[in-house]
């Protein structure tokens, strides 16, 4: 009937061409986008940053390799997703964190938050954030010891060194109704450039924005999540600041401090754990921003970004279900 004219043809369902992107290239793009923040962290925190990043990335990759072998699955480390998780986890750690804890956080992030569900694409929660929250709750002291930074004192001319983060100061001093320091254009510029302490990756807003621009260019993230996230933070902060300027700082402060920029552009936009419809992404971002401010202003922790994103990750299946676009040919006259 059909003799073999030449080697067997490959037969597959349509389409037979492809846009060319792959999971590996996306993960590489995210890594490249993280490089500016990494460079600033190395420059700002020196050896500690290098140590932590190396420990986290290698621990994550090793944990993934071992987990995949135990689960007798293909060694999935070639898609660099473990490297991304390691980098993002390191960016969420204080520079002085001991390496042992960083390894523990990495193992929890990769095994408990990702591989136990079957690997990349099945995890409902952002692995790096699970690792960070696990460490924050297990080792509260080590996770909240920071490096020093020069504080613009309330009265001009006075300079002081402190190891508390801008948000930490806000939480403690505002408790007694005292404004920790004046927050003006110069301080805002100082915070934006990165002259403050905090976790490795969240210090320099400028570096994060550079990375985010690259991600937009490579179409790895959509604008809905970051814009609504930062918008919600700014909106809530603005309302509170208007109502009671004595006890609240302006919205620019809340956007430039803590993990908002890192969270909005890199953590909340993680493809696997964010909604797939544009409307859903908007709700997701707004939810993250709102919860961040609720925890920061009324909650027990000085920083709420990690918890906010994790809680919104839990809501993603419901968001996806209720924000479906109107199918072509339905609705108006369908």
């Amino acid at each position, binding site marked *: 009937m059909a003799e073999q004219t030449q080697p067997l043809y490959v037969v597959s369902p349509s389409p037979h061409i492809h846009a060319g992107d792959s999971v590996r290239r996306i993960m590489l793009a995210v890594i490249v986008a993280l490089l500016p923040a990494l460079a600033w962290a190395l420059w700002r925190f020196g050896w500690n940053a290098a140590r932590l990043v190396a420990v986290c990335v290698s621990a994550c990759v090793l944990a993934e390799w071992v987990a995949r072998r*135990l*689960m007798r699955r293909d060694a999935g480390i070639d898609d660099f997703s473990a490297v991304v998780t390691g980098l993002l986890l390191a960016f969420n750690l204080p520079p002085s964190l001991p390496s042992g804890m960083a390894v523990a956080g990495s193992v929890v992030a990769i095994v*408990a*938050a990702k591989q*136990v*569900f*079957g*690997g990349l694409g*099945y995890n*409902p*929660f952002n692995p790096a954030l*699970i690792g960070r*929250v*696990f460490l924050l*709750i297990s080792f509260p002291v080590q996770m909240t010891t920071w490096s020093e930074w020069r504080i613009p004192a309330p009265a001009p001319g006075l300079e002081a060194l402190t190891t508390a983060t801008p948000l930490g100061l806000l939480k403690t001093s505002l408790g007694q109704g005292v404004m920790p320091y004046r927050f003006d254009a110069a301080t805002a510029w100082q915070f934006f450039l990165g002259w403050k302490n905090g976790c490795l990756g969240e210090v320099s807003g400028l570096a994060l924005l550079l990375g985010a621009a690259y991600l937009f260019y490579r179409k790895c993230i959509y604008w809905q999540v970051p814009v609504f996230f930062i918008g919600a933070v700014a909106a809530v902060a603005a309302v509170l600041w208007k109502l009671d300027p004595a006890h609240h700082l302006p919205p620019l402060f809340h956007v430039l401090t803590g993990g908002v920029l890192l969270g909005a552009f890199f953590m909340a936009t993680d493809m696997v754990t964010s909604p797939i419809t544009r409307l859903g992404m908007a709700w997701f971002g707004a939810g993250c921003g709102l*919860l961040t401010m*609720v*925890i920061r202003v*009324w*909650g*027990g*922790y000085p920083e*709420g970004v*990690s*918890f*906010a994103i*994790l*809680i919104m*990750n*839990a*809501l*993603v*299946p*419901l968001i996806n*279900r209720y924000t479906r676009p109107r199918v072509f040919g339905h609705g108006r006259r369908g």
Partner: protein
Amino acid sequence: MTEYLLLILSAVLVNNFVLTRFLGICPFLGVSKKLPTALGMGLAVIFVMTSASVVTWALQAWVLDPLGLGYLQTIAFILVIATFVQFVELALKRHSPGLHRALGIYLPLITTNCCVLAVAVINVRNRYDLAHSAVFGFGAAAGFALALVIFTGLRERIERAAPPRAFRGTAIALVTAGLLSLAFMGFAGLVKM
């Protein structure tokens, strides 16, 4: 009025009965397969817990305390809760057999649901008056329903996941519930009780 609001807020978010106090885990795992069933279970639990709080408070204040029978608290409470659950089961069987069949064994199991008994006992221990008991009962049930609905959404997602053979089914559900409660810890200290 804000006091009641704070009470509800603390019962739903800060000390969520399922995610922070780890009560009512068996219906939480058993009924979280399909969203409509979970919603049905949530409403049933809200009805039972709110009414049980009121009646148990009355029982405690008017019967057990004056007669000094505090030690019979558990038996009396369970008696009342069982009656409410049986009442709900008969009503559901009559008015929505679909939901009744979907909830299956988990409807009568509300009797043994530790959330219901816990809310009654907490009301008594915290010396809440009638209004506070009812509000706290409603808040606790709302917290349970919220956690159940969120978890059902997650459960439908991880049904499609491919965990290793040892983790399939309830094991992966428990891991997810653990991570969810980790996330809910963010609300710690939200309300200064």
